[in-house]
């Protein structure tokens, strides 16, 4: 097994799928000559040429739409948003075209496309560049939404996303591109729609995804020191949600916390809570809590930004709260 960074795992997934399937191409700002703003596409232009690794002007609606239109013709575009913050200007294309064209055309056309790029806060980028977009996309029927936290998951899920016949929103994280981990040398894929238990435990279920996975694992470590065994479930796919995996854990632990990068109101965190309380009501010994961003636009100042983010310490406090401990 090789030890790869997430950025390499993502690049390898794209490379392998491009080798495997002539219809796959990569398009976005600076993905080619610049090798990607975060170097996820390093070397791909050189390997595949400008026909299949396509630099675009700064027109997110334009190239998101081009990807959709190309997918309707049978191609399999990977559209990189330099960050998902910039997908806001392409929102209508994703909401009204990518998600609906199969339905709207009664199946005459499909949109096998992947929109990928870094999501949520990085470090001191200010309010316009520090937003988590899964609440917007996971809400929409017709899309799949994936968020990855390890090189292994990144590669296996991105390959599945590229092969998927549906539009997939694929969320990475700028600060995690250098995270390293083992990746099998042989080919593999990971099914979309399956959560992963990243750590087993029996006292509290900690549900998490994306950039919050390492925070959750650290939360579990802190808790372990106090004798609390936290089970960490990495959702990996946010739409469709792996409700079975969530319920199985909560029925064991009877307590749950949702820990994520993003604003609190609505979104994936609340969806998880709503399902747990509906489907495991009699198993719950405490309310399900969420630990996430503060409900504010992100400040640039380092100290303030830090205060707005979820941390292992805050995670631990929530874990103890659902255990009614102090």
């Amino acid at each position, binding site marked *: 097994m090789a030890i790869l960074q997430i950025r390499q795992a993502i690049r390898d997934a794209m490379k392998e799928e491009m080798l495997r399937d002539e219809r796959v191409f990569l398009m976005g700002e600076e993905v080619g000559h610049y090798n990607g703003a975060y170097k996820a596409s390093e070397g791909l232009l050189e390997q595949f040429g400008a*026909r299949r690794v396509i630099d675009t002007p700064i027109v997110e609606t334009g190239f*998101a739409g*081009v990807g959709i*239109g190309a997918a309707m013709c049978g*191609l399999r575009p990977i559209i990189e948003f330099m960050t998902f913050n910039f997908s806001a200007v392409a929102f*209508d294309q994703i909401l*009204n075209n990518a998600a609906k064209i199969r339905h*709207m*055309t009664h199946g005459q056309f499909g949109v096998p496309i992947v929109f990928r790029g870094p999501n949520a806060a990085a470090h001191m980028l200010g309010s316009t560049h520090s937003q988590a977009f899964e609440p917007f996309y996971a809400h929409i029927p017709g899309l799949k939404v994936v968020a990855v936290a390890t090189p292994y998951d990144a590669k296996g899920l991105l390959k599945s996303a590229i092969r998927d016949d549906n539009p997939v929103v694929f969320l990475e994280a700028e600060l995690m591109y250098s995270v390293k981990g083992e990746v099998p040398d042989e080919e593999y894929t990971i099914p979309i729609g399956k959560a992963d238990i990243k750590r087993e435990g029996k006292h509290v279920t900690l549900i998490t995804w994306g950039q919050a996975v390492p925070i959750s694992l650290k939360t579990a470590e802190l808790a372990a020191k106090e004798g609390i065994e936290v089970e960490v479930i990495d959702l990996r796919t946010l739409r469709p949600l792996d409700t079975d995996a969530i319920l199985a854990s909560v029925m064991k632990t009877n307590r749950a916390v949702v820990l994520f990068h993003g604003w609190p109101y609505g979104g994936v965190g609340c969806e998880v809570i709503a399902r747990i309380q509906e489907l495991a009501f009699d198993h719950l010994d405490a309310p399900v809590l969420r630990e996430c961003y503060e409900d504010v636009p992100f400040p640039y100042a380092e100290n303030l930004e830090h205060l707005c983010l979820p941390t292992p310490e805050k995670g631990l406090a929530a874990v103890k709260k659902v255990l009614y401990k102090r």
Partner: protein
Amino acid sequence: MTASTATSEAAATTTAEHAAAEIAAQFKGQSKDDTLRDYLAMLRIRRFEESAARAYTRGKISGFLHLYIGQEAIAVATKQAIAAHDRVVSAYRTHGFALALGSDIKACAAELFGKAAGLVGGMGGSMHFFDKAHQLWGGYAIVGNHIPVATGHAFASKYTGDGAVTLVFMGDGAVGIGPVHEGMTLAGVWKLPIVFVVENNQYSMGTPLKRSVPVEDITARAAGYGFHSDRFHVTSVHETRARIAAAVDRARADNQPSLLELITYRFRGHSMSDPAKYRQKEEVDTWRLQDPLERTLLALQQLHGLDEATLEQHDAKIIAEVDAAYEFAEATPQPPPEARFENILVGE
């Protein structure tokens, strides 16, 4: 009744006499058969939509229903100008394209009625006609958001080398919105085989051109994209076909995108819920003299001596076909309840 009746008064004016001379010049060289073919193709669309309007009034069709009455020549010319593997992408005023491109008229009517046998299974209604088998790639109801998508079709053609040209249509009201600009920018930077056609029917809902576009000539912007452009009044199928075909050729032969402005008029309100109070009868009457359907009829009568009886026969045949379509639409069943869960995701 032939289509001429409605404007018989207007036709009696001096302007109409002048128009008659114009028509003689314009249709000279067109064979009788071709002229009749064009006329009937337009008439068929018009009859279909007149019936749609009645069905809407009777509550059989709901949602938004945008009629193409007055603009039919464009769809008919488009069909004639394109090759069998080209693509036509339109906004929500799409019945004319579907019929001209060869979509099943019964499926069109059934779609308006929201029936399972509809063009898109009753899922889309009037605004979302799609018929891949007949080159109709939409049917989009958010103003301008089909332009990047159509640009993507053209991108795919260049990528795969399939030799197809994409023709994408939009209203005069669409040219200000961002996605249109972005799609054109990409087509210009990448030199894609695409033809952007503005159907300038003078209004976006109640808004006349001068309140929505900063300059009179929409093609003034072609220079900013490095596009060829063309701009003309749509008064006949054959001229429209020729000028669309020139742009299609440029796209196919040289990957040279074009921007066409086709000046036309819609005789009905924006949709069935719009009484179109914002314009005067005189304006409408003036435009009637330019109605390609009317002009082609005059050409048939004046240049080819087609008599009322023959015209009536043709019309009766069309009306019978249209009536049958609407009877079918009424009788055919609604989609089954489980249809609402289909075609959302595949491979589940």
